[in-house]
């Protein structure tokens, strides 16, 4: 078990007119090597939650454990935690600052105390993983396209070689092609390096195809915490809180209602295709 949250509460601006109870008694476990989707509406507390996972925010009450150690304990090495739990913020390209892509990606590893050579080796490996080839190394980060900037920024966190990688809305503001590329690369990363991934999103569509487990946040509370298949069964409740199940779920349910013998728990387009084809075959035989 790599990260564990126990009764975590967080209150913004306590005891003022602007008080917001952003997290309410959150209990979670994130195991090593998992691929998790964290879903919630704007303001549901998902961004607040992920900032607790690497100690950037301190819970008003409750405990966070990393490999069984309480990160709020006195003398706990926060810097070490932050290099083990990599956090990619929303619009990470806004954090780029160096003269060229390679030195920007080297910023993290250098802060970890690595030598220039080691840092560059790590940076090059990270850039390879996000699909930025050698021709980009010496380019200014500000010359890149939106999708490329974002990948360079993700590489900046990856180069720190984290055990857990958290991505806060990594696809926000990208076109469908850029979105698919980034998500495919993250998925490949998960398979290749076996790192734990937490993907924050407000779109079920994005995560359904990739993740093994979905955590749904609503108004600071964990609403569902299960496999995509199980979570999407509650599509009516998800709708009630302003989230929607993937379109596939709706089609499957509609087909089922019309009397087609399809599996309404199909969560991806591929699964849906197979079950529809099977249903049609069965229907043809009838």
């Amino acid at each position, binding site marked *: 078990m790599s990260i564990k949250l126990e009764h975590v509460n967080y209150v913004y*601006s306590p005891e003022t*007119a602007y008080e917001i109870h952003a997290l309410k008694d959150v209990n979670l476990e994130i195991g090593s090597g998992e691929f998790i989707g964290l879903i919630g509406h704007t303001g549901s507390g998902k961004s607040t939650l992920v*900032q607790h996972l*690497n100690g*950037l925010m301190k819970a008003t009450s409750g405990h966070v454990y990393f490999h069984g150690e309480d990160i709020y304990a006195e003398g706990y090495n926060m*810097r070490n935690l*932050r*290099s083990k739990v*990599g*956090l990619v*913020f929303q619009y*990470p390209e*806004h*954090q*780029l*600052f160096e003269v060229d892509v390679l030195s920007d990606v080297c*910023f*993290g590893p250098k*802060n*970890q105390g690595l030598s220039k050579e080691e840092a560059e080796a790590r940076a090059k490996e990270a850039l390879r993983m996000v699909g930025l080839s050698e021709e980009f190394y010496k380019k200014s980060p*500000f010359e890149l396209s939106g999708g490329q900037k974002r990948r360079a920024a993700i590489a*900046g*966190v990856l180069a*720190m070689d984290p055990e857990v990688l958290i991505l806060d809305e990594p696809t926000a503001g990208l076109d469908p092609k850029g979105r698919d590329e980034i998500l495919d690369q993250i998925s490949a990363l998960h398979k290749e390096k076996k790192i734990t991934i937490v993907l924050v999103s407000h779109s079920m569509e994005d995560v359904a195809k990739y993740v093994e487990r979905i955590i749904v946040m609503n108004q600071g509370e964990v609403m569902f915490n299960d496999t995509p298949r199980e979570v999407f069964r509650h599509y009516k409740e998800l709708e009630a809180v302003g989230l929607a199940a993937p379109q596939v779920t709706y089609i499957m349910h509609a087909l089922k209602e019309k009397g087609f013998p399809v599996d309404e728990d199909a969560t991806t387009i591929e699964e849906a295709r197979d079950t529809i084809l099977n249903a049609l075959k069965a229907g043809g035989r009838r």
Partner: protein
Amino acid sequence: MIRDITLGQYYPADSILHKLDPRVKLVTTLVFIVALFVNNSWVGCVVSTVFLAAVIRLSKVPFKFMVRGLKTIIMILMITVVFNLFLTPGDRVLVSFWKLQITDKGLRTAAFMAIRLIYLIVGSSVMTLTTTPNDLTDAMERLLGPLKKLHVPVHEVSMMMSIALRFIPILLEETDKIMKAQIARGADFESGNLIQKAKSLVPLLVPLFISAFRRANDLAMAMEARCYRGGSGRTKMKPLTYVRRDYIAYAVVAAYLAATIAVRVVL
């Protein structure tokens, strides 16, 4: 992290002070400050205290918000009080040691200075707590309106002020976000000597400047797209108009100023 910086910290509440025309509040604040310095007697202090207490009561803003502003001037306050206390020559020496002495006059000046400074800060806090920054610049634009005849670009200045005010919380939030993002990448903003600290700000300042320019650019574009071309011929969606309570407030303020002057002249 740096959320605690308060500037024009508006406190939403439903009070008569919140509803007053911002021009009234601006003028009242100026009058209050003038009155503080006109006054030089204990009776005058009582008048100011009563006035301030009444206004605070009417504002429905918790008292601790009023005194929060005092934290920032505590050093200035101490220095002023200490200097006035020890360095004012007077007729009767109360305490004396080494080269310093406390005289009756020094004690009095120090006390008055402290009261003035504290009241000044609390008084202007009442204004900023009950008035949104935008209302305030609106009021300033209207009050300075006559200067337009002298070709002072009043509208442009007030527009710049409201944009600057509007951008402060945005840039603070942005700073917070970039700081966190860099801390997540192992950046260290706290330790090290002065040069190392200054160097460590580069990863914060470069993205911050870029984002400020980007936002400024976007805003200019959005304003142009909506045909903004400066103040001439521009009308307001919600023009400021005085209603009865504003006139009453003016009358109260005038009475307060008159009372202060009367106390000064009579005593």
